[in-house]
């Protein structure tokens, strides 16, 4: 069996979380290689670098090159720094491809991160830049045992608590394994000595009783929750809850979502910037100040033996096309856009750029009159999962217990459902998201106020959320995409092996900067 078939088999049998683990082991997914700020030794002797795009890749490149003595300038399409590092607040206006404009009405302090929203503890480059730029971080909650798992096709459409599904799944599996062990069915693979250890482990792991059974009682309620919690005084008797039967649990498919928190990127600790992910882009923007020219739409990228020249238009001021020149160029424009711009690079890099389309993704932020998920459901941060098209409900990991309105992430999805969402008007996306969410939180019906929907295929400056790599495309094009072509080098999440992560954008940029500097020093 080849590797790909193996992945597919694992994926089909165990869910993609397990497959991800398998891929990680085989080196297909990995951790940040960041070991500290990049060191660019030697004087560039006045060399200039034009950077296209003021996302994290472009701005980190500008910061490091400026500090090393280069003359640096960034051209940015938007009127703000950050790119996909982006937060929408009340008062913001967002116009998508096709012209729909959304006026964000979120109350003071509330926000939606349409793009990235969490920073794993091992994304060392991003965490280091946050530290250097004094961006304050706070914990992001991924797994919440009180959140819901929901299927329209299971339990009459009634959501179950994550902790119930988690405890019952582990408990039943532990019981099965313990039975198989006790019945000597595993003698071929487990030694006599290990059998005793395994049986003990199953008891502890699955909350099994002395007969190795997972069943109703205070022991299992201590995992899955009680009907009535232990109390004080004369009303203190706890009432145990009924585990979900194995057959029903398996058939429900709710177990699909319990492995998410095991994934490397979703393991604790995870962080978010206080006030929204966009705080990082803003901090970079402040640091770089006038080095960034905004509202600049690049229309051609040229190079010859002496330098690069980039033609662009000022989308705000209008007027004739302008040209910026430099010795070198770091281009972080997404491949989905770059493939449409005449760019003077050789066939290998051009083929690589043309080979990447960008995936569809959707996020919908909903404001409610009150934080009912906390007040009524005791859900503080984390996320609920559903097989409805909205896929996920994300609860804010900040502002706990606040009175007044709150914003939650009402939908976050990719693929088919995301394509379908993108084809709707923003109003319809919000309406559908409320309709789906009401099946999990009936409070939506009375508490919903307004929302904002970002479909990434409609985002004018990316045409999608992230570059879509396959193993075949990587083998064929990745090295060509990352190589320096004359005086031009590309950077961004698409030029990394951590696709769609901000860490990937930074590592790509730092790698490009390092190689470019070597080239300059050698000249």
């Amino acid at each position: 069996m080849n590797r790909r078939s193996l992945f597919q088999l694992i994926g089909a049998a165990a869910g993609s979380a397990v497959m991800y683990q398998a891929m990680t082991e085989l080196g297909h997914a990995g951790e940040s290689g960041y070991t500290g700020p990049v060191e660019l030794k030697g004087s560039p002797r006045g060399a200039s670098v034009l950077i296209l795009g003021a996302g994290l890749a472009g701005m980190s490149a500008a910061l490091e090159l400026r500090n090393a003595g280069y003359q640096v300038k960034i051209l940015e399409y938007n009127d703000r720094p950050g790119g996909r590092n982006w937060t929408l607040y009340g008062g913001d206006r967002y116009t998508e491809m096709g012209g729909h404009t959304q006026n964000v009405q979120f109350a003071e302090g509330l926000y939606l991160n349409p793009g990235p929203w969490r920073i794993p503890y091992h994304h060392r480059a991003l965490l280091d830049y946050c530290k250097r730029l004094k961006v304050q971080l706070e914990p992001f909650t991924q797994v919440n045992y009180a959140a819901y798992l929901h299927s329209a096709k299971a339990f009459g459409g009634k959501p179950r608590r994550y902790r119930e599904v988690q405890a019952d799944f582990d408990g039943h599996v532990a019981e099965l394994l313990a039975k198989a062990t006790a019945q000597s069915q595993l003698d071929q693979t487990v030694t006599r000595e290990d059998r005793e250890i395994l049986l003990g482990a199953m008891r502890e792991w699955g909350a099994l009783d002395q007969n190795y059974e997972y069943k109703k009682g205070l022991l299992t309620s201590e995992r899955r929750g009680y009907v009535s919690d232990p109390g004080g005084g004369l009303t203190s008797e706890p009432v145990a809850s009924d585990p979900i039967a194995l057959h029903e649990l398996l058939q429900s498919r709710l177990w699909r979502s319990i492995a998410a928190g095991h994934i490397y990127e979703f393991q604790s600790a995870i962080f978010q910037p206080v006030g929204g992910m966009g705080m990082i882009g803003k901090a970079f923007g402040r640091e770089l100040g006038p080095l960034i020219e905004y509202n600049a739409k690049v229309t051609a990228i040229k190079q010859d033996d002496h330098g690069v020249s980039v033609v662009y238009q000022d989308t705000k001021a209008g007027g004739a096309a302008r040209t910026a020149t430099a010795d070198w160029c770091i281009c972080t424009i997404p491949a989905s856009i770059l493939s449409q711009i005449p760019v003077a690079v050789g066939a290998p890099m051009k083929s690589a750029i043309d080979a990447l389309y960008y995936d569809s993704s959707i996020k919908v932020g909903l404001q409610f009159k009150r934080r009912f998920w906390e007040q009524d459901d005791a859900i503080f941060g984390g996320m609920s999962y559903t097989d409805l098209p909205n896929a996920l409900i994300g609860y804010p990991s900040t502002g706990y217990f606040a009175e007044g309105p709150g914003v939650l992430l009402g939908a976050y999805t990719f693929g088919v459902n995301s394509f379908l969402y993108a084809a709707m008007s923003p109003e319809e996306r919000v309406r559908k998201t409320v309709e789906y969410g009401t099946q999990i939180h009936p409070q939506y019906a009375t508490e919903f106020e307004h929302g904002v929907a970002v479909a990434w295929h409609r985002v004018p400056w990316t045409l999608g959320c992230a570059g879509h790599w396959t193993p075949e495309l990587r083998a064929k094009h990745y090295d060509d995409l990352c190589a320096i072509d004359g005086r031009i080098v590309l950077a961004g999440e698409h030029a990394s092996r951590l696709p769609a992560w901000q860490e990937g954008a930074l590592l790509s940029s730092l790698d490009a900067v390092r190689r470019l500097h070597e080239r300059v020093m050698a000249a």
Partner: protein
Amino acid sequence: MRGPSLIPAMMLAMVLGLAAVGVDHAQDMFAGSYPQQSGEELYKGICQGCHMPNAQGAVGAGAYPALAGDPRLAAAIYPLTVVLNGQRAMPPIGADLSDDQVANVVNYIRTHFGNHYKDTVTPAAVKAARRPPSTEEPE
């Protein structure tokens, strides 16, 4: 398996935390199927996300081409190939559609939005135009 490789798609899903999402819902999310069957339903359900309801396309830092009055639609093989294989920013959406669905949507765009082509694409022609299954990943 029909369609783009499931693995990187799922890996991306994982990565984005959609993963989270879904964990396994990622299977549905990336290599799923579309319920729409008629050309009009498919256009309104999928294509107009980028090409817009009136097929006029849209312009930002990059552009989505108009399908309205597009002379490149004259040869049916052109839209058929683009739907099946993608082209630059255009995803290979046909990988997640049946032969009937691809034929229906291609025929729809070639007979609407100011396009009046008489010849039609058959499901058999779609089947024949699909790329052979992608090669296995090198070991």
